[in-house]
């Protein structure tokens, strides 16, 4: 399968990339690692006429201490995340879940920013970032803006990003090296999660993020509320499917996904004790 023809522009700076986006509007797509976009282009579900390759913008490949948070450059690869000691010490859940994305080859190319910007509810990291109340830093022609994760994911593969904007940085709170668990259910090792559930303690509360339980990554708000009211992990997890809208496909019915959400959330909550 070969993508439809396109003009290829390799961006050598953020400003040059933004200028190209401004010039071509929604005809253009940003290419990061390509692990989500290239398969869509090969299936011709995405047919950009201009492909702007951000892959050489090494200034967006970092994990830095930002004081009360960690700042992760959007082009930081999953492999960088899963081997980063600062991330392991200060926000271990992101490091651990990055190691669960795809397989070695995919993690060598795929980036955290690409995964977030793609906005797939079945991806591992977006639900984790949602649970952490991460902030996303976005650059566009009008300058920089910061969008909280709770307002970023809008609909099926739709995010707050405008066609002329670039996600540059992800900011995560310092949630520590432990106090988290990610439970992912899939049929083959490297597959997307049929359902996933992450539980993480941050800012004095326990948060829950759900993978593939609707058209966007979701917070397990009902579970969080139950826990805050003193419910046991097992009782709180019974609320995991509340407010979700899981799809039905070849892997699972909606009811089965709801069942998985309850079971996986219980396991994740029990794991962090």
């Amino acid at each position, binding site marked *: *399968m070969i993508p439809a023809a396109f003009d290829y522009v390799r961006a050598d700076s953020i400003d040059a990339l933004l200028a190209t986006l401004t010039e071509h509007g929604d005809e253009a797509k940003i290419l990061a690692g390509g692990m989500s976009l290239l398969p869509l282009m090969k299936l011709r579900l995405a047919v950009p006429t201009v492909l702007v390759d951000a892959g050489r913008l090494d200034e967006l490949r970092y994990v830095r201490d930002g004081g009360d948070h960690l700042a992760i450059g959007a082009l930081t690869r999953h492999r960088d995340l899963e081997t980063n000691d600062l991330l392991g010490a200060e926000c271990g859940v992101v490091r651990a879940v990055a190691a669960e994305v795809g397989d070695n080859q995919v993690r060598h190319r795929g980036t955290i920013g690409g995964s977030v910007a793609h906005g797939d509810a079945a991806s591992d990291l977006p639900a984790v970032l949602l649970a952490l109340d991460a902030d996303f830093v976005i650059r566009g022609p009008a300058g920089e803006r910061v969008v909280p994760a709770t307002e970023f994911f809008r609909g099926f593969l739709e995010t707050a990003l405008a066609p002329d904007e670039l996600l540059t940085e992800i900011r995560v709170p310092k949630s520590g090296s432990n106090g988290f668990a990610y439970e992912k259910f899939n049929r083959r090792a490297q597959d997307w999660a049929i359902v996933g559930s992450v539980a993480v303690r941050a800012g004095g509360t326990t948060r829950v993020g759900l993978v593939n339980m609707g058209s966007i990554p979701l917070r397990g708000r009902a579970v969080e509320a139950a826990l805050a009211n003193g419910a046991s992990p097992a009782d709180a997890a019974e609320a995991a499917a509340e407010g979700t809208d899981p799809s039905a496909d070849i892997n699972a019915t909606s009811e089965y996904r709801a069942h998985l959400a309850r079971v996986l959330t219980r396991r994740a909550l029990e794991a962090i004790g």
Partner: protein
Amino acid sequence: MHRVTICQYPRMQIAMTVNGAEQSHDVEPRTLLVQYLREPAGLTGTKVGCDTSSCGACTVLVDGESVKSCTMLAAQADGSTITTIEGLADGPNWHAVQQAFHEHHGLQCGYCTAGMIMAAVGFLDENPDPTDREVRLGLEGNLCRCTGYQNIVAAVLGAAETMQAAK
């Protein structure tokens, strides 16, 4: 009137070092790395399997890291150093991973083998002394539909031992 229309697709010049040899070609930007390696570069050892980045048959090393070359544009590899299965042996001497696949019979039909070996070479570079479990996780991106996994894992563990002993 008979009229012939020739479509003018965009083209670009790319250059990379493949198995130690510098080369440069004029390609369409949409050319996949695997297509580039098999066609203009003439290296057909790298296989196209599923073509959806699931099976790993197309695995090559880009700047030393394993990638699935069906899901990377040749343009993204412009300026990089590529190693394919053809670049592993040193003259008549096989690479330790090739030798181990031979000795442990780490293949049946052989279609996944080039990708399996390249993934193993990249993995052992990152984790030179792995456990059985780590080998299995390290190769999760490579499928063998003959399901010859036992011997493949044994081969990778054997290669790790040989390579550690040679250090």
